[in-house]
């Protein structure tokens, strides 16, 4: 994000040029979702920049030299964690500041077969922890503590904002439960493009029928057999639609949908939308996705 990078540059210059003012902490976040949550807690008290642009697929992220500079310049780096940023590992070794893995300490889902895509760093864990709002509440705690350590002057502000955010997340959770309850139990089945909704499904009692791409990453390719099994499962379950993320091309999903007579419904999975879009913040993203899911599952096929 251009504005972010200019901010980093500007911040650095400010630090160099004005020695009487205490330097502001610079914070780097990897995904837009992490960035949003961090901003909620941090407010304007630190410089927050985000590595991935809007719409980029975090699984397929390829770092550039500019990203290396941004990492090196940050005082604090927040990762979504659980292996999502596996491709950034070499970059992070050069980080000057502290690296905070937001998902450490969380209970992670794991695939028995260990098939998590071609990235060995992912270690077979499902990284889409943010689809369980309680995890994001835990994130806010971690963030508040980390920010307080780096910038003790504003520790009370971070604390206050984290508390407020956790209340909002509590309301979100209740709202989601209400919405999901409107879906008849036999219709609570999800077919998605990749395994992104595991935490959501576990928490809210929805069954994951199958995915177009096998595994937790968008970089895997299904074999013919896996696709055939998926189509069988779709037909057997009678689901009305396939939920597809906006970050990857949907050609294969479209073919499957056409062959099984289902619709394609778009969700935001790994990235927020543009600021003027329907999922500009984490809370908006969850509301939008849940609304899409509920509408999709309750609509007549």
């Amino acid at each position, binding site marked *: 994000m251009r504005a972010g990078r200019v901010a980093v540059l500007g911040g650095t210059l400010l630090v160099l040029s004005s020695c009487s003012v205490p330097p502001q902490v610079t914070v780097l976040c990897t995904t837009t979702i992490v960035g949003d949550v961090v901003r909620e807690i941090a407010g304007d008290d630190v410089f927050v920049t985000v590595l*991935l*642009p809007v719409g*980029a*697929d975090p*699984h*397929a*992220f*390829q770092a550039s030299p500019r990203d290396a500079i941004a990492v090196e310049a940050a005082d604090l780096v927040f990762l979504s964690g659980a292996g999502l940023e596996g491709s950034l590992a070499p970059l992070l070794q050069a980080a000057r500041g502290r690296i905070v893995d937001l998902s450490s300490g969380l209970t992670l889902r794991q695939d028995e077969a260990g098939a998590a895509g071609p990235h060995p760093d992912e270690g077979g864990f499902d990284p889409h922890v943010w689809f369980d709002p309680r995890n994001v509440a835990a994130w806010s705690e971690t963030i508040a503590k980390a920010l307080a350590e780096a910038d003790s002057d504003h520790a009370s502000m971070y604390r206050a904002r984290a508390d407020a955010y956790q209340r909002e997340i509590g309301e979100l959770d209740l709202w989601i439960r209400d919405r999901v309850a409107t879906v008849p139990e036999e219709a609570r089945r999800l077919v998605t493009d990749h395994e992104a909704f595991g935490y959501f499904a576990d928490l809210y009692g929805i069954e994951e029928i199958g995915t177009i791409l096998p595994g937790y990453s*968008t*970089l895997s*390719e*299904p*074999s*013919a*057999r*896996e*696709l*055939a099994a998926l*189509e069988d499962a779709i037909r057997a379950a009678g689901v009305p639609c396939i939920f597809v993320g906006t*970050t*990857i*091309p*949907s*050609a*294969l999903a*479209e*073919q*499957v949908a*056409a*062959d099984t007579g289902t619709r394609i419904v778009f969700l935001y999975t790994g990235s927020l939308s543009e600021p003027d879009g329907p999922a500009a913040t984490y809370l908006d993203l969850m509301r939008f996705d849940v609304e899409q899911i509920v509408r999709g599952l309750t609509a007549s096929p």
Partner: protein
Amino acid sequence: MSAFEWLVAPLRYPFMIRALVASALVGGLCSIVGTFVVLRSMAFLGDAIAHSVLPGIATGVLVAGRGDRRSLFWWALGTSILVALGIGWVSERGRIKEDTAIGIVFAGMFALGIALLSTVRGFAVDLVHVLFGDVLGVSVGDLALIAAFGGAVLLLVVLFYKELVLVSFDPTLGATLRLPVAVYRRLLLVLVAITVVVSLQVVGLALMLAMLVAPATTAYLLTRRVRSMMAVGALIGVASGLIGLYLSFYFAVASGAAIVLVAIAAFLLALLLTPRRGLLHRPARR
């Protein structure tokens, strides 16, 4: 599961039927055009044309976005024809050795493609599809394009068959008979270019060379005349496509790779089993 069930099970899925048709068409087409690639020692050239498609696709992605696959086809087609004619032109000039010239174009175009594609953050998925194919995602529209352009290539080969064979065997005779030898050479390059683009979705760039060369070479070991070489090659190509897809279905391996492995297996079989006569070793007498 009985043999019949085993054969029929994949056919219950429309995507498998489309994939099988596409693989058969592409297998046959690559072998037929591949006959000339093998006889004229154009393997490196064919590989270069295949890899040079990447910048065209990358430009298409940048211009039209990743969703629009139809336009990517046209971008790839335009690029590959231009590159084929360009490589032909460069190697005719003769200032640098032909394989060096081809190698430079090959590597340069591929690097350009990667560079362009890398400006699209998260291009890895698209790249995998371009390199290794995406046969399971073939739509009816894609099949129509494959059939139309593949058919056009086949038609041209049939129409100009004896001229193409002649200029491949003895371009001097072609010159003596006042045939437009250079035109036929360029026609062949264009046919290879179109074949490459049509076959992209089934095999992908990285494995394209194998489909162009392996079935035709297998046929070369088994036959004595160009006509039979082409026919046998086409059969082997079609069979590789179909068998490869069935293997992919039952053993959960990537389709493009499975097709190529079947073709290579056929080649190894032929290599081992044909008696060493005539075609395989240089005739000792002069």
